[in-house]
């Protein structure tokens, strides 16, 4: 089975859905590819314990209603198999998709930093806990501690509480000055001001961070530094996330230039590679409103509707301002670089401790000596951590981009789609 799309969109979060819906009236044959079981990305992840906003439902319905949009869920990109051609895999099959134009809407992942005990069952990412709860993870009457940085901590706490958990503490590493400064700017974006009130929690502490997860076989408690003082809390779950990192791997593999840690784009959301666009969090963290408008600009631009794209520029500028304020407020304290101890595992796939990594010149030298980043996740977790800890630049990924079946790789022999 091979396929061809006039426009291929990778990712069905807010940016990807918005791009597809903007491009659809052109009549182009559109394929939206998504790794998740349902469209919506992480912010609009659906499930038995999720409550989706109306906007998400409506966009999902419109996506299904358009006869020229085909949506493949549970599907991953395994390799770039030729010019404008990708090898992909779902639960049952592998196949190739050829395309004329491509929009990368690959989103972001959480920055997960190593600290003693972080490999214990019961420790998750902050957004990770939220996603797992939406998918049906039971947290009723569980004691939950949330730590790390950024507005996702409050959103994760709200989901946990809504599903019956007792949130004992929310430890934000940013200072009260930084967080207050950010909050004071919120009236510039009234919707965000309202949202922040609804998420406020009396257990929120600034200038606080995780020191260690405690327990033997599974998590039993957490040691926190709260405004200078060490406290220990018994808990059932610890959710730790230190902000978001753009998912740039596929863009990098295709040859798109980076701007810092994100994919570089111009005013049309076009990357450095002709006919390849990018929108949403993979171009820098900015929240769903920015992702929606960037996706729409990319969708319009990719089908040649430059007038419609241009009309959206002011709205994008407005949400870029929000993104800038957010990223300044929650920049990470250097204290977090000293959380990992000599025996703390940094690479969870190959179980490589911090001591085996410190002292190497770069990521490549560390990999060759220790197998760090060479396991199943291909350095998606430890690569982000080591970029923060040692300033090591992760190299562009090589295929297969994620674990794949041999049958899928055999599809590389198939005749390219026309």
């Amino acid at each position: 089975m091979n396929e061809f799309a006039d426009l291929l969109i990778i990712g069905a979060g807010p940016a990807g859905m918005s791009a597809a819906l903007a491009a659809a009236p052109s009549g182009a044959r559109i394929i939206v590819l998504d790794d998740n079981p349902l469209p919506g990305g992480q912010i609009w992840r659906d499930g038995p314990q999720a409550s989706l906003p109306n906007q998400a439902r409506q966009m999902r319905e419109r996506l299904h209603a358009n006869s020229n949009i085909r949506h493949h869920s549970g599907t991953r990109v395994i390799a770039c198999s030729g010019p404008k051609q990708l090898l992909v895999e779902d639960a049952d099959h592998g196949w190739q998709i050829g395309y004329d134009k491509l929009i990368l809407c690959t989103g972001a992942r959480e920055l997960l930093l190593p600290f003693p005990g972080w490999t214990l069952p019961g420790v998750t990412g902050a957004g990770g806990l939220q996603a797992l709860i939406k998918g049906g993870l039971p947290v009723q009457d569980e004691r939950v501690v949330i730590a790390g940085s950024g507005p996702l901590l409050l959103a994760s706490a709200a989901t946990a509480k809504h599903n019956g958990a007792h949130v004992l503490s929310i430890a934000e590493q940013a200072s009260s000055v930084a967080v207050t400064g950010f909050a004071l700017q919120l009236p510039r974006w009234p919707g965000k001001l309202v949202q922040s009130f609804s998420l406020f929690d009396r257990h929120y502490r600034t200038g606080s961070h995780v020191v260690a997860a405690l327990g033997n076989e599974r998590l039993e408690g957490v040691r926190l530094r709260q405004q200078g003082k060490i406290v220990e809390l018994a808990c059932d779950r610890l959710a730790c996330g230190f902000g978001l990192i753009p998912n740039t791997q596929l863009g990098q593999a295709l040859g798109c230039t980076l701007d810092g840690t994100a994919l570089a784009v111009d005013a049309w959301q076009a990357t450095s590679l002709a006919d390849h666009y990018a929108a949403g969090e993979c171009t820098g963290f900015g929240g769903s409103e920015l992702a929606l408008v960037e996706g729409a600009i990319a969708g319009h631009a990719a089908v040649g509707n430059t007038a419609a794209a241009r009309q959206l520029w002011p709205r994008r500028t407005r949400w870029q301002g929000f993104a800038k304020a957010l990223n300044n407020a929650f920049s990470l304290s250097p204290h977090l670089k000293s959380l990992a101890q000599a025996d703390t595992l940094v690479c969870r796939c190959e179980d490589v401790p911090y001591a085996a990594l410190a002292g190497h010149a770069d990521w490549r030298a560390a990999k060759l000596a220790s197998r760090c980043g060479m396991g199943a996740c291909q350095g998606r977790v430890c690569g982000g951590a080591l970029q923060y800890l040692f300033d090591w630049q992760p190299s562009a990924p090589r295929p297969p981009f994620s674990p794949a079946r041999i049958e899928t790789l055999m599809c590389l022999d198939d005749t390219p789609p026309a």
Partner: protein
Amino acid sequence: MPDLVLDGRTLRVAEGTTVAAALALASDGCSRTSVSGQRRAPLCGMGICQECRVTIDGRRRLACQTLCHDGMQVRTRP
């Protein structure tokens, strides 16, 4: 309401439940054993970290990105 079998235990879950959630509903929530012998559980919840990889009907899948289906056989130990 799909019924699935997880490490030999039968379990009925709500429609749309992920296999990652079913791990916690059925037992201790663990998904795999690491190369140095530690038990691990889902971490990122969104298909990145690979900690939640399990064997489903003989194939290696990510528990957090897979919805439970009737008759599914899930194993967390080799």
